[in-house]
C-alpha cells in the first residue's frame, strides 16, 4: 500500500475571507427590535414603578427610568444595525455564519462534524416568517451554531441540504477517528 503526503500550499487553500456570504432576511432587524422592545419595556416599567422607600431615590426614579429607556433605545438601534449585517454562507464542506457589529465573529462549522439539525421559532419570529436553524455536533451541550434570521422557506432548504449531506456521509455520528 502506498501512502502519499503531499505538502499543501496555504495560498491555494479555499479562503474563508473570500467566501461569498448571503445576508440573512431583512425581516430579522424589525423582529429583533420588537423582541428587544418588549424586553426593555418590561425593565423600564419595573424601574419606574418599583416601590422605593428612600425619598431622594423616589424623586430621581422617573429619571432613572428615563436613563434605562435611553439605554434600551441604544441597544435596540445597535441590534437593528447588527441584524442588517448578519450573513451566512453554505460551501460544499462547511457552513459559515458571520454576526456582530462592534465585535464581529465569523464561525465556520465543517459539515462532517454535524450530528443533527433543528429548526426553532417563537411566536414573534413566526409573525415575521423567520426561523432559527440550530446545528449540533457530537458531545456538545447546546447548539454549536445557531443560524438566526432565515425565512421559513430558506431555512427548510438549508436544512434539507444539510440532512442530505448528513445522510451521504458514511457515518456522520462518529468522529473522524472511526477510520483507522
Amino acid at each position: 500500500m502506498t501512502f502519499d503526503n503531499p505538502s499543501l500550499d496555504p495560498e491555494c487553500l479555499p479562503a474563508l475571507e473570500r467566501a461569498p456570504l448571503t445576508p440573512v432576511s431583512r425581516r430579522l432587524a424589525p423582529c429583533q427590535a420588537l423582541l428587544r422592545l418588549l424586553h426593555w419595556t418590561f425593565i423600564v416599567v419595573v424601574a419606574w414603578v418599583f416601590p422605593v422607600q428612600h425619598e431622594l431615590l423616589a424623586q430621581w426614579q422617573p429619571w432613572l427610568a428615563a436613563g434605562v429607556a435611553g439605554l434600551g433605545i441604544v441597544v435596540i438601534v445597535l441590534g437593528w444595525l447588527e441584524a442588517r449585517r448578519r450573513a451566512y454562507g453554505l460551501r460544499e464542506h462547511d457552513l459559515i455564519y458571520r454576526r456582530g457589529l462592534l465585535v464581529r465573529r465569523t464561525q465556520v462549522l465543517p459539515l462532517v462534524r454535524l450530528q443533527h439539525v433543528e429548526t426553532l421559532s417563537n411566536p414573534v419570529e413566526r409573525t415575521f416568517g423567520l426561523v432559527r436553524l440550530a446545528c449540533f455536533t457530537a458531545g456538545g451541550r447546546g447548539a454549536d451554531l445557531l443560524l438566526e434570521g432565515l425565512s421559513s422557506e430558506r431555512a427548510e432548504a438549508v436544512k434539507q441540504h444539510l440532512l442530505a449531506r448528513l445522510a451521504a456521509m458514511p457515518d456522520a455520528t462518529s468522529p473522524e477517528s472511526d477510520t483507522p
Partner: protein
Amino acid sequence: MNPVQDVPTERLALSGWQRLSPWAVGLLLISAGATLVRQHMPLLLGAGAGLAMVERVGLRELALGGVLLLLVAGLLSLLYYRRFRFRLDDDVLIVQKGLFEHREFKLAARHVQHIALHQPAYMRPFGLVLWEVETLAGEASSIQLPGIRRELADALGRGLRSTDSATVKGLPADNDSAPSDAEQAVVRYAISPGGLVLHGLTSRSIYVIAAMLSPLIRPLERWIHDRLPQLDLQAWLPESTLLAIVLGVLGLVIVLAFLAVLAAWWRFHGYVLRDDGERQVQVSGLFARQEQALSLSRLQVVEWVQTGLGRLLGRGYLVCHQFGAMGGGGAAESRRFLVPGLTTEQGRALTAVLWPGLSIGQPLARVAVIYRRVVLLRLLLGSSLLLLAALGLVGPGGLAPGAWAAAAATLLVISTGLAQLRWMAVGWALEGAHMRIRQGLWGQRTSHFPQQNLVSVGIQQSWFQRRRGVATLQLDLANGRLSLPYLPERVALTLANRLLASVESGQAA
C-alpha cells in the same frame, strides 16, 4: 481461561438477559438509606426537632413507621432488581430498567467511547463492580450497571470492544483477539510513592479542597471566638500579630497540602497505565479501585497540565479528553482519564504514545505584542478601580501620600509582570498533522490534538482589533474552546483555512 477462544462463547452467554447481583441491590439499598439519613440528619437532630417529633408521635409508632418504610424500601428494591436487566444483542447493549417508568437503552458498540469500572471498598468482598459506559454524546449520556460480578463486567467490556474493533478494522467479529489480558499489555507508567506525594502537592486538588472546606470557616471562626479566651493560648502565641498571621496562614497551607496529598493517595494509589495496543488501561485507587479504558481511536485532545508549583518542581499531569467532556473544573477533571505525577520528559514520552507520530520539536509562536499591552491596560483599569475603592473606604487622609504612591507603584509593577507572563504563556505551533496550544499564566495548560479533530472554527475581531489588523482565533474542540487572542489577521485566517482543510479533506479521505 483463554479470552481469545472464549469470546464467541461469552457473547453467546451475554446474549441472554443478565441481572444485577442480588448483593448489589442490597448494598444499593443500604447506601441509599445512609445517604438519605445523612442528608436529613440536620433536619432530624437540629435544635431538638427529632426529640420533639419522638415525643409527639411516640416511640412505638415511630418504630412501626420505620419498619413499614423498610418493608416498602425492600419491596421497591425487589421490583428494581426484577426490572433491571441487560443483554448484548450482537453489537448492541440493551438495558431495561425503571420502577414506575420503564426505560430501555440501546447502545451500539461503535458509539462507545469510554468504559470504566469502579469498585468501592464495600463491594470488594462480594467481587462486585460498578460498570459504566459512556457514548460519544459525552458524560451526560453514560449508562451504569450498579453492581455486577467482575467477570461479567470484563466479558461485557470484551463483547463491546471486539465488535467495535471489528467495525473499525474491518475484521469479522469472531476473529477478534480482544487483547485485554494483562499479559499482552505493556506497562507504560506506574506511579511511585514520591510521585504520588508530588502529584498531591502540585495538582489542583489543593484548590478543590480549599473550596470544599470553605463553608467550615464561619463555624470555625465562631468556635475560636467562643473557646479561644478560655484556652489561654496567649502563652505560646507569638507576640507579633503579623507573625501570628503568617504562622496561621502557613499552618493552613500545610493542612491543605496534607489533605491534597491524602486525596492523591486515595484516588491514585497503585496507579498503573497499561498499553493494550489500541487501548490504554489505567487502574488506581486506595479503597475505591477504578479501572478506565481509553480507546485511542476515540481520543480527541491530550492536555499537559502544570500548576505554578508543578512547574517549579518539574511535575505535571496529562488529561485525555474525549467527546462531551466540557467544563466541570478540577473536580470533573479528576474523573477523566488522567495520568498523574509525571515529569516533563515522561509527559512528552506518553504524549507521543497517545499521539503516534507526534514530535514536540517546534518552538511555540507567540501572539502579537499588542496582546501584552491590552492585558496590561485591563489590569491597570482593575488596579485603578481597586485604588479608588480603597480611597473611598479610608479617605484621602487615611494613608500618607507616600503610601498611596507606593501602593500605585506596586500595583503597576504587578500588572506589568502579570501582563508579560500572560503574553509569554500563550503560544501555538503546528507539528505536522497536529497542533499544540499553550495557555495560562503561572500554571500552564498545553493542548495537543490532531488538526482534523477540530469541531468548528471562529474568528472574532473587535473594532479595536480590526484597526490594529489582529484577530482572535477560536477553536472548538471536543473538550471545549481554545482561543488564540490577538494573532495577526493574516496568520489567523491562514490558520483557520488550513485547519478547515485538514478537517474536511481528512473526512473526505
